[in-house]
């Protein structure tokens, strides 16, 4: 990393996440980081990105960072402002392309645990549970998992609790369980790199390393083996313009300040 880092990890992750969102498509966002990534994409390469909030805001021009998904900013200059039932139904009907997810732990198939660490009846830690995430992970065509702390504790062989479905037990498992065919985790972004999922095995595959990160560091920070293709790219650093917009979206650094 250069001597005086122009950006922090959250800004790098936000630019990487925004870059995945194509213009003219739709994305399900929750509070915090996903909103920032969606707004950055909307104000740079994807002005036609349809941002959808779980409480009912559909296609807003978000003026300033909302403090909750029900915040009236989530439908400022929007196309529609309906309800949670309407938006969740749209996701089930297949209208939503991307969805953001986070989690305490993830396995090689992109399944996520946000419910308990340890035994369900006597947990070491009780986590918030799925919230809208299970709807996102079940119904969005391509979900993007953002995890700031990739390590042996967060990239695990076996989850203590499977809260949100990734590819479940592997190829075809989503479809057998009744989830939409062809849907599932698309990318994973951590503090070390950006990952995809191998088409055949549905296992986590490294796509690009963040600046200054090595393949060894990536393998070291995971209980399971991450597939390493011959060609691995380098994540582009945030540009000045992206940083300027990020700091305009979140002037108080509520999200990008962390």
């Amino acid at each position, binding site marked *: 990393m250069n001597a005086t880092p122009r950006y922090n990890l959250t800004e790098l992750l936000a630019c990487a996440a925004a870059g995945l969102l194509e213009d003219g498509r739709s994305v399900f966002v929750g509070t915090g980081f996903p909103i920032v990534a969606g707004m950055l994409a909307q104000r740079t390469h994807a002005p036609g990105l349809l941002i959808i909030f779980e409480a*009912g*805001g559909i296609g807003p021009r978000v003026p*300033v960072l909302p*403090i909750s998904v029900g915040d009236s900013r989530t*439908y400022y200059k929007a196309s529609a402002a309906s309800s949670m039932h309407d938006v969740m139904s749209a996701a089930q009907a297949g209208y939503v392309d991307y969805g953001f997810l986070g989690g305490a732990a993830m396995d090689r198939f992109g399944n996520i645990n946000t419910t308990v660490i340890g035994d369900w009846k006597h947990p070491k830690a009780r986590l918030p549970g799925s919230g809208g995430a299970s709807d996102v992970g*079940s119904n969005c065509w391509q979900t993007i998992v953002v995890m700031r702390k990739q390590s042996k504790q967060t990239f695990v062989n076996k989850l203590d*609790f499977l*809260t949100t479905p990734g590819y479940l037990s592997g190829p075809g498992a989503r479809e057998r369980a*009744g989830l939409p065919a062809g849907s599932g985790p698309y990318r994973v972004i951590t503090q070390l790199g950006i990952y995809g999922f191998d088409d055949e095995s549905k296992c986590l595959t490294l796509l690009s390393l963040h600046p200054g990160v090595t393949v060894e560091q990536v393998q070291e920070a995971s209980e399971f083996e991450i597939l390493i293709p011959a060609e691995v790219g380098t994540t582009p650093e945030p540009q000045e313009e992206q940083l300027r917009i990020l700091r305009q979206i979140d002037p108080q650094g509520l999200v990008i300040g962390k």
Partner: protein
Amino acid sequence: PVRTMLGTDTLKYSSGKVVEDPWSGKPIALLPACYPDVALFHVHRCDMYGNAQLDGILIEDFELARAARRLILTTEKIIDHAEVENQPWRTSIPFYLVDAVIEVPFGAHPTEMPTQYYFDEEHIAHWLEVSKTPEGTVNYFEEYVFGVPDYTAYLEKIGGQKKWDHLKQVMDLKDDSGGEA
């Protein structure tokens, strides 16, 4: 029926069931309905019969009003029934669902009332701070809930008309803390 949570522990540990969809043959999850004894929420306008109109997103008020056995509405303003008759399509909660209506202007404080006033982030920050401890929580309720004779006294305590006007400005993005991008 929902096509959500299939294959997860979230569903396994829930009271949901998985059945084969008789039409598509695919598995689908069935979730039991919920019947809260009482639902209570704040609406923009309501006539004396209980016909309530809300501006902005409904979030889950539409379903909640219909699921609860008893429904109590507080409202910014009780309006004439004639006003409802002029625009009946705006009524999202019809009278037959409603058991009680109470007019409580500024009644959503410290949360926002879409199109009317924004979150009182200062007060919410205070609550988040003091409610970190049981004592702090008890003190908060003593000071702002049980320790005030009525809602008007509560409003005076949190900043009264001056605070209300400020939060209207913030809602309309005419204030620095909510500045237009």
